[in-house]
């Protein structure tokens, strides 16, 4: 079966090969599934997502999206970086439809397509507001919509809820899992919160060691949380 995203034997460095930050990273995710990467701070989780997104070329190894080798080529997966990165000079609807505009969709058509989805992403009534007028949770929702409108079946999320308060975080997390399943998105999520990982994912890749490697791929079920905590200890 062709995986939505598959990485095999990735070796990653910070400075063009001098310092290896992660090695032998292999992971996969299927359509409609969410997997999480957990590991201590500085273990190279973001570097792994950069490599999966094509922003960084690995020293060795391959990244395949729907069976196609896309190693080091951006644009095949939708990537939501750690911050919401909404452009302050664009209204919310224009931020959301930015990927469409960049791919040449006319302004009105792009805005209409974003507007249609505003309700589903909990953004109704915010279309014409500026990012500075929105709360952290709402900004994050707008960033989710922009990520979705990138139009790829694979979504990479780098600590998407870390900047939010506990309540908003739980709400948004539950909402995302439900929405991603409905839309059939394959998601790879970085988190340092083990509880969040077992809530969201069907499988959790636990990273450890120096340079980092996948210590174990844990299938979420009874006792998964404690087992992951033991692996991270």
């Amino acid at each position, binding site marked *: 079966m062709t995986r939505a995203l598959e990485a095999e034997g990735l070796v990653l460095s910070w400075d063009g090969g001098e310092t290896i930050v992660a090695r032998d990273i292999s992971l996969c995710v299927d359509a409609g599934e969410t997997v999480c990467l957990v590991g201590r701070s500085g273990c190279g989780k973001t570097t792994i997502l*950069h490599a999966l*997104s*094509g*922003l960084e070329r690995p020293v060795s190894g391959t990244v395949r999206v729907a069976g196609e080798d896309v190693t080091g080529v*951006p*644009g095949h*997966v*939708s*990537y939501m*970086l*750690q*911050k919401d*990165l909404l*452009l*302050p*000079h*664009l209204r919310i609807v224009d931020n959301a439809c*930015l*990927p469409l505009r*960049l*791919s040449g969709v006319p302004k009105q058509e792009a805005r209409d397509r974003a507007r249609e989805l505003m309700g589903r992403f909990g953004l109704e009534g915010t279309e014409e*507001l*500026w*990012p*500075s*007028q929105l709360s952290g949770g709402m900004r994050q929702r707008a960033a989710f919509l922009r990520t979705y409108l*990138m139009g790829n079946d694979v979504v990479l999320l780098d600590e998407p809820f870390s900047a939010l308060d506990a309540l908003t975080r739980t709400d948004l997390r539950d909402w995302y899992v439900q929405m991603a399943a409905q839309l059939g998105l394959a998601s790879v999520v970085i988190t340092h919160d083990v509880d969040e990982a077992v809530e969201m994912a069907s499988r959790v890749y636990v990273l450890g060691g120096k340079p980092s490697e996948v210590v174990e791929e844990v299938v979420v079920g009874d006792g998964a949380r404690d087992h992951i905590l033991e692996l991270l200890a």
Partner: protein
Amino acid sequence: MTAPSTKSRKWIVPTITVIVLLVVWELVVRLGLVPNFLLPSPTQTLVALVQDAPELAAHAGTTLLEAVLGLTLGVAVGFVFAVLMDRFETLYLALNPIITVSQTIPTVAIAPLLVLWFGYDLVPKVVLIVLTTFFPVTVSLVSGFRSVDPDTIALMRTMKASELQIFTRVKLPAAMGSFFSGLRISATYAIVGAVIAEWLGGFSGLGVYMTRVRKSFSYDRMFAVIYLISVLSLVLMKCIDLLEYACMPWKRAERKQS
């Protein structure tokens, strides 16, 4: 009685300060603490301003034309330099020291050379203004372009944005705030630059008028033209404020939020 709001205090405090200064100045001259031939009073200056209004308006027109023309070209040159320096790191390293050194050359030193090379007409004045105004624009734009969060550029790359799209949709809007700060400085340089250039030769303009009245020891008219130069600079800066207000609607929302 209620205290004035913060908004009205912003106007009231400086207005009262200016009025107090003018009253003190008037009294100092009227009481003979400073000889009148050295320092005309504000009312004498105002009378001179009204009496010479038609002549001053004609000269101000020339100065304003030179300033606006020079400023426009200076902004264009500054923009081109900034874009090239941002795009090509080698060019940034090559040009940055030269541009900085160019600003250490005093305007009054280079103005006579420009008159010598380009004559007494519009050209040397505009060239001098371009030389003095492009620098703040270049520096502010380059720093604005470089202030963009690298993660935003990375995000744009994941959306397959071209270099031109990254420039127009991210870098240029991000640099607008610092660009307008630079433009405000350039606007004041433009008027002063025009007057300095006119001092050294020309047929019309506030600098030419200033040279004439100085030679005739008409210090009231000299002060009248100083007032006028200040007013022109303030008007130009206000125009830039309005342009910024119109071009950056999201800033208004940010200010309201804060």
